[in-house]
């Protein structure tokens, strides 16, 4: 029989596996062909100046067995749903030239850790010796701001404890000269600890720290080095792209943000009316607004895993927007109290106190908005967030004041209607921005809003238009105004709920399965 192909492959020099390298068995008889790899799995020399530890992940070796995940959970005694090390899947190519690759990741122990910079209580430290980003559960108050600040979804909130936790590279094991749990458990030797020169890495990280299925290493200068296969199919992508779910609503924060904005809006209204010479019932309005503000601050502590330690959040005001928010709203509430007292007692100086109240309040709302302008949550990171927060105050403040029987009702209603119109515009522009974006997280957010969340989005618009525009313009009876305020308030609450649930955070690739029962 002719074998033209044999001729061809011979001519083309394709060599077959006629290798003589059949190694002889060890003479002792016991099996020891696989060398003890632990020596090469962790650094064998001390760190020099300007160096730190990092993970190396070899994607060409990983078989997706998830031993690292199980070993990590056992090492740290974590419940099943908290995984400090995770394995995601990316896939590309066409049958039969398909490649599914796995991405195993703990913490990237970034050079510019955003979890650390955002933390209001200084629970994070970047270990000066090893560069490991360490989280201190004792200090943590469970505000979960770090979980929004990490592009990789590394810090995870443990509701059983009320604090966050994360991968610390098992640095206590490294100190003992032992490999981290994930490193030791990997049957393929795909995970290692290495030493990295920080300055060098800063110059060259882009090529080795990025991988398909991972957010850009630019966000925080990840130190993890990833070895990718020599060639990847061009369409290699996360397998969980179609598995977008609403995020957690954070109900205390929904109420806290809307109520603080209402309170600040109301004080601004009161103060402006005072400046314009109105006097009737300002003291009552101030008292109500103060109560609203108090309610908001109470709501904010409900969000914390450890409310008793809420005061700690003041600590990092030089660095963390969350600290600044707490500080400014704290100031706001105290000055507002003074303002209300001065108004109530009709003492002089209330104009100045009112001005300071409004200043602190607006600054607080600004800080509040800035909290959400984080890279890992692209749908929040826009001027629409700032606008939404201001406009909520601008809509609800005057409406509340009108309900409390303050003067210049016509002006108040006009202000509210204008604010409602702008809020609606802001909403529409934001939605168009999301829909037209090429960025996965923004598109996914638009998909959520236009599919699963569509009824709520429509209701939010209806409430805004009815409560903020139709009712106030139609009738100014006390009942109508009360209904208008309630409707507009409900609209803002729903809007804020959608703000929280419709954001799609950046994250590493996950696995495909949804873990949910068949849809009913």
């Amino acid at each position, binding site marked *: 029989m002719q*074998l033209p*192909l044999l001729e061809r*492959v011979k001519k083309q020099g394709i060599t077959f*596996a*006629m*290798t*003589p390298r*059949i190694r002889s*068995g060890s003479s002792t008889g*016991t*099996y020891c*062909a*696989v060398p003890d790899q632990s020596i090469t799995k962790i650094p064998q020399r001390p760190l020099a100046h300007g160096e730190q530890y990092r993970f190396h992940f070899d994607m060409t070796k990983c*078989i997706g*067995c998830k*031993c690292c*995940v*199980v070993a990590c*959970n*056992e*090492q740290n*005694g974590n*419940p*099943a*749903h908290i*995984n400090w090390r995770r394995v995601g899947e990316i*896939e590309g190519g066409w*049958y*039969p030239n*398909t*490649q*599914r690759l796995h991405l195993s990741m703990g913490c990237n122990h970034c050079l510019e850790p955003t979890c650390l910079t955002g933390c209001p209580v200084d629970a994070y430290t970047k270990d000066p010796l090893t560069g490991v980003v360490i989280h201190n*559960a*004792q200090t943590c108050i469970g505000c979960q701001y770090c979980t929004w600040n990490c592009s990789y979804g590394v810090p995870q*909130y443990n509701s059983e*404890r*009320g604090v966050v936790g994360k991968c610390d590279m*098992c640095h206590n*094991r490294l100190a*003992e000269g032992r490999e981290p749990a994930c490193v030791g*458990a990997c*049957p*393929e*030797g795909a995970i290692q600890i290495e030493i990295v020169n920080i300055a060098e890495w800063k110059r060259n990280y882009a090529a080795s720290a990025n991988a398909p299925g991972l957010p850009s290493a630019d966000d925080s200068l990840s130190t993890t080095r990833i070895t990718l296969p020599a060639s990847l199919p061009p369409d290699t992508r996360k397998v969980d792209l*179609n*598995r977008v779910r609403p995020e*957690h609503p954070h109900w205390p924060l929904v109420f806290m943000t809307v109520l603080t904005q209402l309170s600040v809006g109301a004080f601004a209204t009161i103060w402006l009316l005072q400046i314009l010479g109105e006097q009737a019932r300002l003291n009552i309005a101030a008292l109500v607004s103060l109560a609203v503000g108090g309610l908001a601050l109470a709501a904010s502590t409900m969000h*914390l*895993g*450890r*409310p*008793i330690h809420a005061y700690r959040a003041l600590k990092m005001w030089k660095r963390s927007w969350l600290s600044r928010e707490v500080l400014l709203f704290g100031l706001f509430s105290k000055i507002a109290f003074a303002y209300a007292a001065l108004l109530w007692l009709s003492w002089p100086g209330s104009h100045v106190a009112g001005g300071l109240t409004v200043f602190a309040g607006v600054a607080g709302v600004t800080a509040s908005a800035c909290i959400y302008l984080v890279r890992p949550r692209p749908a929040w990171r826009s001027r629409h967030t700032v606008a939404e927060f201001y406009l909520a105050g601008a809509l609800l403040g005057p409406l509340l004041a009108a309900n409390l029987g303050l003067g210049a009702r016509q002006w108040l209603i006009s202000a509210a209607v204008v604010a409602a119109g702008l809020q609606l515009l802001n909403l529409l522009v934001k939605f168009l921005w999301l829909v037209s974006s090429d960025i996965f997280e923004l598109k996914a957010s638009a998909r959520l809003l236009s599919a699963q969340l569509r009824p709520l989005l429509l209701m939010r618009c209806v409430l805004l238009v009815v409560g903020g525009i139709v009712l106030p313009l139609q009738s100014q009876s006390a009942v109508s105004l009360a209904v208008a305020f309630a409707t507009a308030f409900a609209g803002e609450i729903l809007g804020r709920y959608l703000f929280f649930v419709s954001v799609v955070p950046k994250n590493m690739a996950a696995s*495909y*399965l*949804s873990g*949910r*029962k*068949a*849809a*009913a």
Partner: protein
Amino acid sequence: MTLKRQLGLDILAGKYSYGTDPVTGFTSAQKIPDRWVATTCGYCSVGCGMLVGVKDGKAVSVRGNPDHPVNRGLLCPKGLSEHHTIEAETRARYPLLRKNGKLTRISWDEALETLVAKFRGVQKKYGPDALGVLSTGQLVTEEFYALGKLVQLGFGTKNYDGNTTLCMASAVSGYKRSFGSDGPPGAYEDLEKADVILLLGANVADNHPILCQRLEANQSKILIVADPRVTKTAMMADIYLPLKPRSDIALINGLIHILLEQDLVDRRYIAQHTTGFDALEESVRKYTPEFVSRITGLSQEQFLRTALLYGHAQAPFIGWTMGVNHSTKGTETVNAINNLALVTGKIGKPGASPFSITGQCNAMGTREAGFTSSIPGYRKFESVRDREEIARLWNMAPGRIPTSRGLAYPDIVEAALAKKIRALWVIATNPVVSFPNLGILQQSLEALDFFVVQDGFHPTPTSELADLVLPAAIWGEKEGTYTNSERRVSKVNAAVPAPGEARSDFDIFLAIAETLGCREELFPDWHGPKDAFEEWKCVSAGRLCDYSGLDYELIEKHGGIQWPFPTGATEIATSRLYTDGRFQTEDGKARLFPIEWEPFPEQPNDDYPFVLNTGRTVEHWHTRTKTAQVAILQHLSPNAWLEMNPRDADALKLQPHAHVDIVSRRGRTSGVELRITEMIAPGQVFMPFHFAETNVNQVTQSAFDPFSREPNYKQCAVRVEQTPPSSTKASGFGWFRGKSTTAQERRP
């Protein structure tokens, strides 16, 4: 939640504290044990050595045994979390008897008396073979040995088989036909010494991940993987052969065809050590590259490259698992594989072997000692000499030894349906999830007069239907030995006591023998597993699976020792069978068989256009009685899925994550999450078989290998439909759920 916790004064610092274990170092304090107990993993047949950490009488942690020759300290995710199976809520704790339709707790005495009375009653009325027994590959060898004697000699029924028939039976039958005996010839070390590794229908990356380190260590090999699905293992291959479902025989015959053409066969070996070559040569004549290419769908170039690589290899290794075995042609495919190894003389040499990578932790043990498809010690029912020998060893009349094998697993099920079998005893297996075409099985279980389930877990879909439930100890709670894929015998030890009144299967068998009145005859002076092991050593002496030089201490010392290990053996080196070219046939020569490719039985058509393939995922074990109870595994792999090529999904207008029904002529599996992926070829779909809630065996087929009686799980014709939105309940066993965790808990 306490007030202190709600306020944040308490963050469960104790529970989440760390400590330093003197052996393993810094770790979660709750995982630091008082002592470590060496044992062998109880999941698959890789046979990893491990240590169980025990603290206050509870198993709190596990770690791979760094000194064990198989795994050198490494474990797969199931092994790494195996201690959690012991604490599962669904452990069987007390004997239960169905009274007025309800399973009610009874005493062990009542349980044993009831079992014996009912079994004896049925046998008296309908004949001894009206009792059927279905066992497993999960017990220790000592238990298999005891059970075999109890069933065949005590109860006197031949209708005894194991779930190994759903798994490795085709390898067993294939080995017996080709080599004259069961027994995998190779060793794991061959994975490191081979220059060409051909894996047929074996997804080791998902199913035997700890073997992958051997592949990784062998940098000079060429890995060829033949599988219709682009499995994780296929993605590791140097050459991937995406052949059409069940075209492997054509591929192998084609390889032999080329090797003959190119004179890459070992004519001297063929002449000296085989018979049947002429018929084989004749039969492969038509398997030309054109013909093979047409049947397999491979390009001629791919195929020729493979043939030349294999032909020129000095140490080619052929590994296979269920892609070969789960087939009506399973046994013959194994024979074809053996043909390929034999004509090249590549068997019994370092690196070179045909090698079945076994499934269950001790499937090998029941094959050697179990008295199901053969008499203990790989003896043949048909052989007068073998029967006389075993009768002499057992000190009984040769007439008591059965002269033929009883019914195999699927035939026991059919006999129950036909009311020929009236009582059934199921031990450590879960057929209501694992048996193909479940409807048949359910009818046959309903037809029984008396149904006993002996298991470590209750409720399982099977134990729910039982009249009598016997609670058994599981891995970590009992002593004995397992034999792994490479014939390595490892020790299994008890780390903790069994829960409630659960007893080891060994104790249960002896207690039943006592009640039956045959304990003294069958198990004279037996007290523990060691007594069984000592007797088994004598019974195995001189056989291929010779244990006679082994003892518990020696095994423990070396972590595991391969048989044959006859009395006086001292060398603990890796061993291979048939190194001298002498086989276990009458004439000492291996048999070559002409094997013909045939299409698989149920071809797709317009109504059922897809070929359904089934398999596993790394996180789960078989029917999930264990792994569904391990929260981390359940979290990592929460539900079943159906893989479908994007082209097919487009045509059916199905979206990713849609819930679909899989429908065959036999039934429907509802509400399966759709995974649209290029891992699967157009026209094929794949689904894992672990999930009782969405059970693929509601659609698989009753078609069995004529030799091994192994089911054809791997191919049947189905259609796929979007699950109607109204069907809120997933089909099957809605109550059978694993521990669930909600992803939402992450961000409260």
